[in-house]
């Protein structure tokens, strides 16, 4: 890792876009999180805490948690008390992830990780209430932005690598994951079943390629141009619902401006 990683600075506007998108995605993600928690807290349902006895709160507090998460997500999006809002949002999201095996979500894990990194960055330096209150900066330390980029890269890379198995590449898991209405429309249009195999292969290798291409200046633009419809297709066709997949897409998109942002070699 070059020493410049720790001394270079990045255009604060790019990090501000990341912050806004993560805030909006965290607000959207509340829909899925509420559903998960409410379902787990139904009486007589089995809870699966990681540590016996350390689990979810009482059902009466579900609205409090949702309100707290929404407030923190809003503060992050508008850049009000940016750093504490980001760190508290991350803590709340990690709590939900770790409270029970059933409340885990890859989408929420990504958002919690990005919120943590935004809390370490000076992400409220532009396009924010904090900037309006005299904390504006044109450039901010780049190392947290680098970690946001690696986080999204890792999600694409391992998302693709994990799909390199017979069940996924055969198309069987793609077939099961597509919403029934969409599936029936595809099949009734006379499209052969091999389309699901093709989708399995192409999506797995596309995710791996994205992890590589985002770091290549010449391939970066084509990667983003292809990634947007890829995520849009997932939002429109994959189960269980559009909202959490939209939140996931926004979380992934949030890192894209950082790959295009202007870096400067430092300051102190």
């Amino acid at each position, binding site marked *: 890792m070059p020493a410049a990683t720790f001394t270079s600075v990045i255009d604060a506007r790019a990090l501000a876009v990341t912050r806004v998108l993560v805030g909006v995605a965290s607000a959207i993600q509340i829909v899925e999180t509420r559903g998960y928690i409410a379902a787990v807290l139904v009486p007589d349902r089995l809870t699966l805490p990681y540590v016996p006895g350390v689990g979810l709160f009482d059902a009466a507090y579900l609205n409090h948690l949702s309100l707290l998460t929404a407030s923190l997500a809003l503060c992050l999006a508008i850049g009000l008390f940016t750093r504490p809002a980001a760190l508290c949002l991350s803590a709340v999201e990690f709590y939900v992830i770790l409270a029970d095996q059933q409340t885990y979500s890859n989408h929420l894990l990504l958002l919690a990780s990005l919120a943590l990194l935004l809390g370490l960055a000076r992400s409220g330096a532009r396009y924010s209430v904090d900037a309006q209150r005299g904390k504006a900066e044109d450039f901010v330390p780049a190392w947290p932005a680098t970690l946001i980029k690696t986080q999204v890269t890792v999600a694409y890379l*391992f998302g693709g690598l*994990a799909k390199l198995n017979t069940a996924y590449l055969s198309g069987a898991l793609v077939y099961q994951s597509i919403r029934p209405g969409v599936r029936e429309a595809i099949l009734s249009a006379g499209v052969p079943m091999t389309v699901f195999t093709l989708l399995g292969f192409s999506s797995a290798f596309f995710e791996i390629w994205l992890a590589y291409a985002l770091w290549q200046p010449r391939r970066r633009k084509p990667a983003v141009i292809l990634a947007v419809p890829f995520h849009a297709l997932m939002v429109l066709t994959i189960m269980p619902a559009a909202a959490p997949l939209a939140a996931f897409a926004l979380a992934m998109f949030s890192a894209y401006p950082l790959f295009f942002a202007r870096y400067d070699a430092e300051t102190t």
Partner: protein
Amino acid sequence: MRQVAFFAILAAQVVIPAWQLAFAVRPARFGWQMYAGSRLPSRIVVSAGGAEREVLASDYLGNLRLDLDTEERLPPTICRRERAVRVVYHFPDREPREFPCPQPPSLP
């Protein structure tokens, strides 16, 4: 300090999913293994009162995630509630797995 934080976070970002990919049953949590498989049984059959019948995992678990490891906690709960002698998990792509239920000691 920032170097320590940077490398600690970077290591966590890479090592945890790499470990999950290499050593955990797929799909594993904390490994970005979205839609990469299913650990859930396709059917759960219990033997109780001399007969066999199917039970639904959704009657026991609120959120049936594909990455859930149910094999430790769910069979004992099914045994207790269904007064079963045996719980069998059936999978679409591997052999069934049987969980004998603990039986109360018989009277002398």
